[in-house]
């Protein structure tokens, strides 16, 4: 007996997603385009933490980061047909959706320019047991300086640094998230590094307000 088309699609993406033991996000996107809830569920399992962390770098509080994360995956569902396999990785595309959602939220609520609030909550207060108190304190100080220095940068500079140096994106992937050319990204990173260094120096010399 022939399988219904929906069943065939589901079996197809499940087979592709499991193929070779490697994650096949493109196969999941194909299934999402066909309206497969399970494919979206699998994609969320793979990328939700990374997207949430990226969203947090914009929102600086957990409630808004949750909203941004939901919005990202909702857009993934509704805009799946616009994803072009092979041009960028799915994870890169998802980060682009997150940034766009953050820009939209910024326009509506202007929270990107708000004060640091509970930035990096759950990060700065948690240090592993393998550090001595002195090391933990020093690491906490260093991270706090980096956090304040990054927060003082323009959004694009901050995002470029976070993507390339914290999240391990290639320059090409970061350029795709920011919607700029590779050359523009390289130039943006150079400006961002200089600005970050200047901010760090100002804080370490006690010049930060």
């Amino acid at each position, binding site marked *: 007996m022939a399988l219904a088309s929906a069943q065939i699609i589901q079996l197809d993406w499940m087979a592709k997603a499991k193929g070779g033991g490697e994650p096949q996000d493109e196969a999941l996107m194909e299934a999402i385009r066909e309206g497969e809830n399970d494919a979206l569920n699998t994609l*969320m399992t793979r990328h939700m933490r990374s997207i949430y962390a990226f969203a947090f770098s914009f929102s600086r509080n957990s409630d808004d980061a949750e909203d941004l994360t939901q919005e990202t995956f909702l857009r993934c569902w509704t805009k799946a047909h616009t994803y072009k396999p092979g041009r960028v990785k799915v994870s890169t595309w998802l980060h682009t959706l997150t940034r766009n959602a953050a820009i*939209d939220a910024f326009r509506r609520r202007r929270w990107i320019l708000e004060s640091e609030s509970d930035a990096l909550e759950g990060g700065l207060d948690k240090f592993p047991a393998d550090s001595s108190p002195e090391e933990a304190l020093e690491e906490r100080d260093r*991270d706090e300086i980096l956090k304040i220095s990054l927060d003082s940068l323009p*959004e694009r500079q901050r995002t470029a640094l976070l993507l390339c140096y*914290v999240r391990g994106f290639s320059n090409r992937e970061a350029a795709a998230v920011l919607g700029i050319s590779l050359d523009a990204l390289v130039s943006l990173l150079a400006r961002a590094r200089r600005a970050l260094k200047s901010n*760090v120096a100002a804080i370490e010399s006690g010049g930060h307000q």
Partner: protein
Amino acid sequence: MCSEEMKSEEEILEALRNSRGFSIDLDPRTESKMRQAVFERIDERARVADWLLRPLWRPVLAVLLPFATGLAFGQSDYLIEAPLPTDPKQTVNLVTSIDAADELLEYFAAHVDAEVEVEVEVEDVE
């Protein structure tokens, strides 16, 4: 401040790479809550889309179109507000965003017999 100051650009970037302060905890309950919320919003969206796709809406969208291109896409909120043809006291709001603007255009193109020319400028947040 730090006992060991970060002097060079390389030192700063190395500290950034090794920083554990940027990892964010996401507990399974929150993850599950977000996952459920996404599917609820997808269902809600499907219901609204069903409603909007009723033939009743086609003339409304046709009326909205010039308004949308002339006003709504020039505003940062991209808001379209129009009275319901069946009950003028009620209005409907269509709110678009950077991503949704494209989607809305595609929707108009597919369901409204009119040409649409819209430029959506994405402002730099810097």
